[in-house]
């Protein structure tokens, strides 16, 4: 276990009855580092991310966040550890408005007459600031998010993840609902996060996104880590070959 690592996973496994979804996954993510995870559909990337996010509990193995081993596997405890996740399904509540979704579960409150009430003004102001950071303008922060486009909804999920300066942001297909040009400010933001002491774990089917943003890329196949590539020394073509299992592992200890 190292204090220099935002995340360190040792031999994580996840079994669903007789099926092993994740097998002995060992990986690490440094502070101020962006690490991509690539792999085919069903390779186990999403399960791996959900384990780090605490919504799926590992069957065996150890997970250290900021050098401290995780004992309690629950989304609430994990958020308190400074780990946030942008889920592929976005995990938004369609009936709540923009700022209620961003601060859901962590609403700023005021004490009024001995009672804790929601601080709507602060939520609205901070939501505005977060959207400004992403260079996005929405016509209304008080309409339910069901009124928004797919891309706008994605941005709301990302605002929720970065709202409290997390140690680690996990992003599952963050640009899936965005056009290439609309995804550009998001890519810029992801690249900026390490300078704000936030590490990033990113899964994307757009290999160009991984190459553009990450420092290293782990290749996941059939629930196991099959390769690790330095982004500066790889290409989309090489990454595709690694995903297809056509290359020897770069780091022998991974398999």
């Amino acid at each position: 276990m190292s204090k220099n690592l935002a995340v360190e996973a040792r031999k994580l496994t996840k079994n669903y009855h007789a099926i092993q979804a994740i097998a002995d996954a060992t990986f690490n993510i440094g502070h101020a580092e962006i690490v991509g995870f690539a792999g085919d559909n069903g390779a186990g990337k999403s399960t791996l991310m959900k384990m780090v996010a605490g919504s799926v509990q590992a069957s065996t193995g150890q997970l250290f966040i900021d050098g401290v081993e995780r004992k309690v596997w629950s989304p609430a405890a994990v958020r308190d550890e400074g780990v946030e996740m942008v889920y592929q399904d976005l995990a938004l509540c369609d009936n709540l408005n923009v700022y209620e979704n961003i601060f859901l579960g962590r609403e700023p409150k005021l004490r009024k007459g001995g009672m804790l009430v929601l601080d709507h003004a602060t939520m609205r102001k901070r939501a505005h600031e977060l959207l400004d950071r992403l260079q996005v303008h929405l016509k209304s922060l008080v309409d339910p998010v069901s009124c928004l486009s797919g891309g706008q909804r994605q941005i709301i999920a990302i605002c929720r993840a970065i709202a409290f300066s997390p140690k680690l942001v996990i992003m599952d297909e963050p640009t899936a609902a965005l056009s290439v040009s609309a995804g550009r400010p998001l890519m810029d933001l992801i690249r900026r996060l390490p300078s704000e002491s936030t590490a990033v774990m990113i899964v994307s089917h757009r290999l160009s996104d991984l190459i553009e943003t990450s420092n290293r890329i782990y290749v996941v196949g059939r629930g196991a880590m099959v390769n690790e590539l330095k982004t500066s020394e790889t290409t989309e073509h090489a990454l595709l070959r690694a995903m297809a299992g056509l290359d020897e592992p770069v780091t022998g200890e991974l398999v």
Partner: protein
Amino acid sequence: MPTLHSSPHESSGTARSTVVALEADKPPVSFSRFAELQTWRMLGLVTAIAVMFAIFNFLTGGLFFTPRNLSNLSVQTSVTALLTVGMTWLMVARQIDLSGGALIALLGVMVAKCQATFGWPLGATLAAALALGLLVGLVQGFIITRLAIPAFIATLAAFSYLRGAAFIASDGMTIAGLGDGFSMIANTNVPVVVSVVVFLFAGAIVATRKVMSWMKAENKRKTRPVDVVATVVFVLCTLVGAWAFGAYRGIPSPVVAFLVVIGAATFVANNTAFGRHIYAIGANPEAARRVGINVKGMLMALFVLSSLLATLGALIQTSRLDAGSPGTAEFLALDAISASVIGGTSLFGGRGTVAGSALGALLMSTIANGLSIMGTNTYWQLVTTGALLVAALTIDRVTNRGEQA
């Protein structure tokens, strides 16, 4: 509406220009069109109630719109309205409780036995009723959240065993004569002068605050028509309330209970994390869990709350009748569901307000009361409630195209 997707004309622009639409420099609007639509719907319900008032007043030769009948109507609405508050929150959170009427019957029999048969002091009877209500809520919550039995089945079972327990406890007999102390619970009125002042004060406060807000320089052009209409309607309602309760005995205690509960529930729903989390669970329980909301704990709390509100309803009903009957409140849970749906609560969760549901309860009571004064066969009340439900859902479908009812 700004879009995150670039238009063909923007494809060669900078990142900012591709993301920000033409309205980028305008501040976000401060009103919600969705919330406005909800308010218009609620005003539609108030209009429907007003139309019913006018029709029944005409058909009964002026007997309906009298202070005495309006006071009776408000008391008749109170028990259903109390049950409707718990039902609305449960339905918003994708749950349901079919056992409210049966719980009222069991509690009615129990308090009647405690008072009339065992001669318990009033305080002990109230404590026992609260304890039983709490226990039933905890058991329901446990079965639904820990044993993962669907709420429909778990509360259908309770609908049966609670009603059965009421019949067993009373040998199928009505137990009457609970004593003066107990009968004061639902048969006391706020003094007339205080009642008038309360209604006029409420209307004046809301009107003054709204007018001052509209007069502010920065809001002068932002006043929304729906806000003006809603304020006028609210003030008119307070004037009717002041007239009715001023001319006939003051506000009855059951009405005080349901007004306080509805006011508190509306405040909690809009201004506390607990309230907003109910709506979050209703829209997307998995998302609520992922952000750290204790979904099971919340549902447990809602079932306990629903049972406690039924307990309050039982005390009012038993006190009004001065008797506990095992066959009472047979359709009350279904009435509460109907009132919630008529008031705009979605059967699929995530949408609904306690104020809307209370208006739904008032509309149903209005029809029952009007038909009763006309001397119509009471079975017609069931027919009209059914027709009202179909009408409410049809209107909901038309105004909510694309959403589930």
